[in-house]
Each structure stands twice: as C-alpha cells, then as structure tokens.
C-alpha cells in the first residue's frame, strides 16, 4: 500500500510529467495537433517540443520524483516500524546524539569558503581550500568510523587518536614549521639589511616567549583556542579578498551592455528573460 510520503512524491512526478507535456506543447509555436502532443511524449524524437529547458527540467523532475517515490515505497516511507524490522528488533534504536564537539564542519565551511575566494581571486586560496577540504574529508570519515567502533566514547577517541596521530602530528609539524619558515623567509627577503637583522633576532625571542607561555599556562581555555583559530580562518579569507582588491594592477572594467557577438555559429548569447538591465535608480 502506498504511504503518505510516497504518495506526495508520485503526485510530484505526475505533475512534472503532465506539466512537461502541456508546457512543451504550449510553447512549440505550432498549431496544436498530434505532433505537438507526440513530440513531448517521445522526448522530441517525433513531433515538436517547444521551450526545451523547461520541458527537460519538468521531465527530469518527473523522473527524479518517481525514483524517490519508488525508493521510499520500498522502504515503506522509512517508518519506524519498518526500520525496526530491518534490524529484527522490537523497536527502532534512537538516533545518535552528537554529544561531543567536532570542529570539522567549521573547517569544512572555511575550506569551501576559501575555494570560493580562490575561484574568484587566485589559485593560492583555491589550493588552501582544496587541501582543507581533503583533510576534512579524511578526518571526518575516520571520525565517523571511530565514533561507531565501540560503545565507549573514550575508547573510540583512543582508537581514533591511535590511527590518526601518526599522520596528524608530523603533518601539522611540517605545515606549521614549513609555513612559518616560508613566511619568515619572505619577510627577510623583503626587508632592508638592518630590518632583516632585527627580524632575525626578534623571531627566536618571540618563539621563546610563546614557548614559555605554553609552559607556564599549558591549559588554555578551549574557547580561546577556538576563537584564535576562528579569527585565523577569517583573517585568511579577508586577506584573500583584500589581496584581490589591492593587488589588482589593472582592473578590467566591464561595461554594463557588454555582450558577445550576435549571430555567429556557437557564439550567440543565450536568451534572457529581459534583454535590458534592470534599472531601479528612479523608483
């Protein structure tokens, strides 16, 4: 028997199909006849199909909703009783409560944001984002697996750490030390002689000071660390944007009426809902 969720999806599929046929027939600019009906029914193989994109999307909606409807029918709408049957239990187990902190979603967010900035601005941010996303994928996958390794949260944590520390610690060390050395070398190259002497002398002192601070106060509040990392992530994104704005040597000015050449094969601009720009200056 069809259940409520599946019924909705089948109705959506039916709507998609009906709308696709009527839309394709209605926009075909031909006299409404058999060809206008047969065209949409045969995916345009015989007869006419009017506006192609709308027809394709509506037909695809029909297919996608049909797929989901059949799928959910097979799962009996994923009803709790049907889920319990899968496990051979009397009642279905509760969903797992996310009772531990996990910063990977935030890292994933920053990584994707970095990719976005990189797509617009330059390859460095893109690479940073891609590396972040790859690391997140690996870490997230391991975390998801280890969280279900045993029923003991602390043992799961120990298992995860045993698997990942040998990778994470050297990796972080290489990234940290390498990045630091690279940054300092860039600064030293950019400075005059006296400045480089000063930096060369001050950097070890700063490292010593940070080390001493860590020794004196080994347990910093997690919120402080999280805040610092958050500020760092925002600084990277902001830095990328500022670099793009300030670093544009000769910004390419675009013209509002810019468009491609008309009429050449394959170079014709796509049709738009309105050929003109929306002007709201004189509301």
């Amino acid at each position: 028997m069809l259940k409520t969720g599946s019924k909705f999806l089948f109705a959506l599929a039916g709507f998609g199909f009906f709308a696709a046929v009527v839309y394709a027939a209605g926009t075909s600019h031909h006299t409404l006849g058999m060809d206008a009906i047969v065209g949409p029914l045969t995916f345009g193989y015989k007869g006419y199909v009017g506006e192609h994109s709308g027809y394709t999307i509506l037909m695809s909606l029909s297919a996608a909703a049909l797929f989901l409807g059949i799928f959910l029918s097979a799962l009996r709408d994923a009803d709790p009783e049907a889920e319990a049957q899968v496990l051979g239990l009397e009642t279905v187990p509760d969903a797992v409560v996310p009772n531990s902190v996990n910063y990977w979603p935030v890292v994933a967010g920053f990584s994707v944001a970095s990719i976005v900035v990189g797509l617009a601005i330059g390859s460095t941010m893109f690479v940073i984002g891609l590396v972040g996303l790859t690391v997140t994928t690996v870490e997230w996958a391991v975390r998801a697996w280890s969280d279900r390794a045993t029923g003991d949260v602390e043992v799961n944590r120990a298992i995860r750490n045993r698997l990942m520390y040998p990778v994470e610690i050297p990796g972080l060390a290489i990234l940290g030390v390498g990045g630091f050395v690279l940054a300092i070398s860039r600064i030293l190259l950019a400075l005059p002689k006296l400045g480089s002497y000063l930096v060369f002398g001050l950097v070890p002192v700063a490292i010593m000071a940070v080390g001493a601070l860590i020794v004196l106060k080994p347990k910093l509040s997690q919120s402080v660390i999280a805040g610092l990392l958050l500020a760092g992530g925002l600084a990277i994104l902001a830095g990328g944007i500022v670099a793009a704005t300030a670093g544009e040597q000769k910004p390419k000015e675009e013209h509002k009426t810019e468009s491609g050449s008309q009429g050449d094969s394959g170079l014709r601009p796509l049709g738009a809902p309105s050929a003109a720009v929306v002007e709201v200056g004189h509301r």
Partner: protein
Amino acid sequence: MAVIDTPPETVHAASESATVIPRAQPTGLAGVLGSGDHKVLGRLFIITSLLFGLAVVALGQGFAVEGLAPKTLDVFSADTVFQFFTFFRVATVFLLALPLVIGVAFVVVPLQVGAPALAFPRAAAASFWGWLLGSGLLIASYAMNGGPGGGSTKGVNLWIAALALVVGAIVLAAVSLATTVFALRTPGLTLDRAPLFAWSVLVASIMWLVTLPVLFGLLVLMYVDHRHGGTSFGANAGLYSRLLWVFRNPQIYTVAIPVLGFAADVLATTARTRIAPRFAAQGAIGAFGIVGFGSFFVAATPDSGAYDAAIVMVIGLAAVLPVLAIGGLAGDLFRRGSFRLTAGALYAVSSVLILLLGVAAGALGSLPRLDTAGTVFDLGVTNGVVLASIIASLGAVHWWATKIGRQPANESIGRLAPLVLLLGSAAVVIPDLISGLAGDGAETRLDWTGGIQGLNVIVVVGAALVGLGLLAAMVSLLPILKAGTDVEADPWEGQTLEWLAPSPPPLANFVAPLPVVMSAEPLLDLREEK
C-alpha cells in the same frame, strides 16, 4: 582481517579504561563552534538571519524613500543603485527568509517527530557555517564593486561563487531536514500523523532539493562563462536577469510552504481541537509545494512564450486553492474549538492573509491578458510571499520560544508585532500591485521610473511599519535569551510531541522514553484519557 576485528590494541585500551580520562565538554565559543546540537544550530541560523534581516529592511526602506521623488531624492547613487537593488532581492530570500525558516525548522522539527537529533547533525552544522561564510563573501563581493552590474571582474566572480556556496549550504540543510522527517520519527508516528509544521518542512525541503540545484548549476555555468569573457550571459549586467525566476512566482512560493504548516499547527492548538479532515490539510500543503516548482523558467525568454503558456496560468491559479483550503480549515477550527487570542495565533492569521494576498496576486499576474510580467507587479507578489514567510517564522520563534530559547517571549508585545507587520506588509505589497496593473513601473526596462508616485508614499509607510514590526517582534523575543526557572514544558496545551520535552530541551531533547504515538495529536489523547 578487519581493523575492528583485531582486538589486541582495543582490548589494551579498554583494559586501561581507567587511564582514559573523559574529556570535559567545552562550553562557550568552543562549544558553539563544535556543536552538532540541532537547537544550537537553529538558534545560530535564527539570530544571524535576523541580523541580516535588519539590514535588508533598512535597504528596502531606502528604496521606498527614493521612490517618493525619483528625480530629486538620491538615496543611492546612480552607479551603485543596481547593485544595492540586486543585493536587496538576493538577501531577502537567501540571507533572511530561507535561513530563518531553516533555523526554526532545525530546532522544532526533531522535537516534533520525537527525535533526539537532526539526521546528519555534522552536515547540518557544515550547512550553517557554509551559509554564514557564503553570506559574508556575498556581501564582501559587493564591497569589492562586484555583484550584477559591478565593475570589478573578480568581485563579480566572487558574487557568483559566494551565492553558489549559499545555495549549496541551503540544499545541505534541506537534506538534513527531509531525512529527519522521513527516517527519524518515533515509533507510531507515521507520516500521516506527523505534525503539520514538520510535514510542511518536509514538503518544502523536497521542493528546495529539486529546484535549488538547478540554480546552483546555473551559477556554475555563469561563473565559467564570466571567467571566460561572458559571451553567453551578457557579462556582469546580464547576470541578475538570469536569476529572476528564483524571485518570482511560482518558485518564490517554495519559501512560504512552512507558513501553512505553522498556521495549521498553531491554530489547531489555540482552538484546543483537532484539525479535520487532516488529509485535506496535508494535501493542501503538499499541493502548494508542488505548484511552487518554478525552475523550469531557468532559461525561458519572453520570445519562447513560456510566460504565456497555459500551464503557467493553471499553476498560478491553482496556488490559491491550498492557501484557501488552509484558511477554510482554520475557520472551521475557530467554529468548532474554543479559541484563545495568543500572539502565535495572530502571527499565523497574519501570515496566511499576506500569503493569500501574494498568491492571489500571483494568480492575477499569470493571466496573459493583464501583461504584468516584468513590472513591479512581480515585485509585489514576491514581497507578499516573502513577508508571509518572515511573519510566520517570527511567529514560530514566538510560539516555540521555550524550546528555541530559555523562557516564554513577551506575549503583549508579541500580539502587537504581527498586527503591525500585517498592516506594513499590505501597505508595501498592494501599491506595487496596483502600479503593475496600471502598467506603470516596469521592473525590467531601462526607462523605468518606478510605480505610481502617489502610491509610493504608502510603500514608505508600509516599509516603516514592517521595520517597526520586525523590531517589536525582536523586542518581544528578548526574554527568551535569559535563563528562567521552572519554565513550563507545555505553555499552550500543545498537541504534538515537542511539548513533552522540557523547556529548554536538554541535549537529547526528551528525558523519558516517548510513548508509542497512536494519533496525530498524542498530547491531546493523553489529556482526553485523563
């Protein structure tokens, strides 16, 4: 041999379990950043979207003021007005209305279906952070002179990519919400017994999942094109017109689907009776979702006859029926039940009335003879539907204040806010509809000089009232931020499972195992049994 089947290390670790010191769960910023709790994520969505909302309303007010005397009043300079306008349209939907609905749904839906968490809680967290950072980058792109009509190539590229990130994050949130309603229901709670708000969120999520990816694909296409010279999309100036389908009917209706679920749930509870026939309410919400499918307009042009197609008119007219059906069912509730005047009920009625105005106008606009396409009439329809969604979301925060926040919201200010919002919304929407019908104020013509100037005075008053209403609603919600003592679990004599959870709900939502649900109104059953 599998890793987990290799016991020595595991046994070793377990045998030394005394040495594995349990970690204290972090609080404060660390707790928020690392949280997968649906209530924390929902609150984050609500707070941030409301903050963006204040900026959006201020911007709308700016446009309304400029419309008073377009020749002399220059609130926005001629160079930037188009960018401000596109930001206003994009932000209204993607930075305010949609995330506000999602925020409420994140908190309420798991509670309503008796789940201790959202499905894929970490993905839900990623959706919030992705949305927030995407929104920040979207604003930054305008600051770089980007966005549609912007002069900086990189700024325009950033705008496209940032909007794609925002859309992707919303799709991720929709996956989490839809899966929660489908697969995390408590025993006995079949979908036909699911609370109507949860059902409406399911319908909305599915519709977002089948329409917003089309927008995502379009943005990818626009990015590739713009990156390589912009020959296909008319460079920076042509970008916005490609997205107009997202902001017009029927697509804009998908933003307002939860309005119907919210209204049905709240009005049934305030009337202390069951909504009947229930399948009609569910069907109406489902039908409203289906007719909101608007992504088939993605590449439609006026020449293609797409806007005049018969199916568009049918969809436009059909969209009114579900809203009327919910209105009718609400009327029946008032007739049968013992109605209480609560802020939640006023929000519900206000949002349905404004939605009805929006969809009725949409139906009128879909009649080809009236020729309203591309005029401010469309703007009026969109504003009506989006405002209905915002009013309902604010009402939902008020109604579920003890679940979203820590104690009830201020009821007396809460009763004032929806009335002000109702008046303000009507004053914003109706003048644009009249101007559009009169053929004045074409939205997509270069020589557009706005709506009828006399009527624009009403728009200014309306925008001010909307701003005031939003502020009043936010003031009424201030108490929910403070910790309370002995906060009632069920202040409204609720009918659905969320009211069994303590206020505010603990991490796993419910302190005792839930009873097997036997009807759509399990708490009403319990009360009747007593």
